[in-house]
Every structure is written in structure tokens, then in C-alpha cells.
């Protein structure tokens, strides 16, 4: 895929933020599915009882997002990357995350 911003200045920091958001969204979906499919994982995610497993699912996703952002920023800062490709990967990760949070799709995957 060609980069429409070819010739522009370094965009690595921006690309890191975009990809990290996709990773965070995808981890949110994966954790939501895991917590729903397995009672033991759901119990593991229950880090604050009044909110239940949602507290652990969202905390894990936020942690994954911030860690990914930090690591990617350190790796790509000051560099030029193909942001068009990063956008596409991030969009795919977000779609996966969105689908995995949609209850009928979750149930379909679990054969319910």
C-alpha cells in the first residue's frame, strides 16, 4: 500500500498512537469474550466486586493500550512509517474488537 503522506516529515509517533488504539480495542474484545466464555477467567477479571468482571476486562484493555502506545512510541519516534498500512491494521483490529463485544456474535462463537 502506498503512503499518501510520502515525503512528509516523521510520523512514527502518530502511527504508534493509531496502532496502539487498535490493539487496545482488540484486547477489550478478546477479554470481554474470554470473561464471558469462561467462569474462571471471568472470576479473574473481577478485581472490584461491585462492577464485576467488567472492571478487569476494561482495566486489562487500558493497560494493553497504554503499554502498546509506550513501546511503539519508543520504537517509532522520529521515524517515518507507512501510516496508510498502520491505519488499515488498526481499523481491522478495531472491527475485531467491536465484533467481539457484540453479544450475538460472542454467543455465536461460543455456540450458545
Amino acid at each position: 500500500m502506498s503512503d499518501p503522506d510520502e515525503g512528509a516529515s516523521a510520523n512514527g509517533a502518530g502511527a504508534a498512537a493509531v496502532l496502539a488504539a487498535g490493539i487496545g480495542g482488540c484486547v477489550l474484545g478478546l477479554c470481554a469474550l474470554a470473561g464471558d466464555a469462561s467462569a474462571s477467567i471471568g472470576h479473574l477479571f473481577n478485581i472490584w466486586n461491585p462492577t464485576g468482571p467488567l472492571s478487569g476486562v476494561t482495566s486489562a484493555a487500558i493497560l494493553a493500550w497504554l503499554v502498546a502506545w509506550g513501546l511503539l512510541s519508543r520504537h517509532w519516534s522520529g521515524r517515518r512509517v507507512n501510516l496508510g498500512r498502520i491505519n488499515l491494521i488498526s481499523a481491522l483490529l478495531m472491527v475485531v474488537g467491536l465484533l467481539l463485544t457484540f453479544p450475538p456474535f460472542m454467543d455465536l462463537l461460543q455456540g450458545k
Partner: protein
Amino acid sequence: MFFGGLLMLTVGAAIMGLYATSATGSHWTLTPVQARLFSGFLALIALLAWITVLLGAYVIYPWYRAHAPAGTLDLSGYPQRLLMSKPSTTGWHDIGMEWKEHIAWFAPISLTVVAYLFSRYGKDLHALKSVRRAIFGLIALAFFATCVAAFFGAMLNKFAPVRGGSVITLMHEESHDE
């Protein structure tokens, strides 16, 4: 609902502002002051999104999912139990709340990245097509997530209102004892 509604309005305004200032062929070039102000506006929207989901998950949701003591017949103080007590309303929990409680978190993550991208590349967005696409993709996702969460929030509140604890009382019934 107040925070969710406010978030929908402000995200809508941000989409219009971003489009007006960064679309190809737009003649509106932001001055440094305007860019700083708009950057601050986007940061405030991201903060609002975080406040909304945190309040929702850690203040409202515990009220919603409160367990009714055994033998409770009046489930009006236990919205989740009330919805799940009838086949005609159980879908509002199984699909509505189950989706809303997760999808809402896409909004603050996306809006934080949008605010960051604008603060870093805002003045060059005319030229940076891929950054512009990323910003519009993320803010569209945030708007969609906010709309889904707000819709189900409103519907759930209609079918099984979350009343919360007895401590928070905003209005009292007028007394006509005279």
C-alpha cells in the same frame, strides 16, 4: 445520561470542526491561537469521555447489577434482576447492557488518540492525508460507540430505571398537608 448526551453533542461538534479545517480544498487555515483552542477542546472531550465511562462503570453500573435479597418480590430497585425476570425484557440486558458496557470504552480510547494526533499534527492536516484519515476514522468510531451506549442507556433506563442508593435525592415530593 447527562454525560453521554453531552459527549454525543461535543463529538458531533468536533467532527464538524475537524472537517471544516482539514478537508481537502478547505480554505480555513487555523491560526496558532485557534489551533491551540481546538486542541484544548478535543482534550476536554477526551476527558469528558473518560469521566462518562468511569462514572458509568464504577457508580451507576453497581446500582444496576445489585443483587436482590432472596425472596424479594418487588424488583424495581434491582434493574438487572427486573429485566431478567421476564422473557419480554431480558434482551435489554442480554444484548443492550452487555454491549453497552463494553462498546462505550472505545470512545475514550479513540478520543484520546484523536486529541493527541491533532495536538501534534493539527496545523499540517491539509497535507497529511493518512493522519487525517486516522483522525476521522477514530472520531467516527467514538461517535458510533457513544450513540450505541447512549441509545441502550436511554432504553434501559426507560424499562428499568436505575434509582441508585437512598443518599442521592435530587427532588422531593411537595407536601400538601396544610
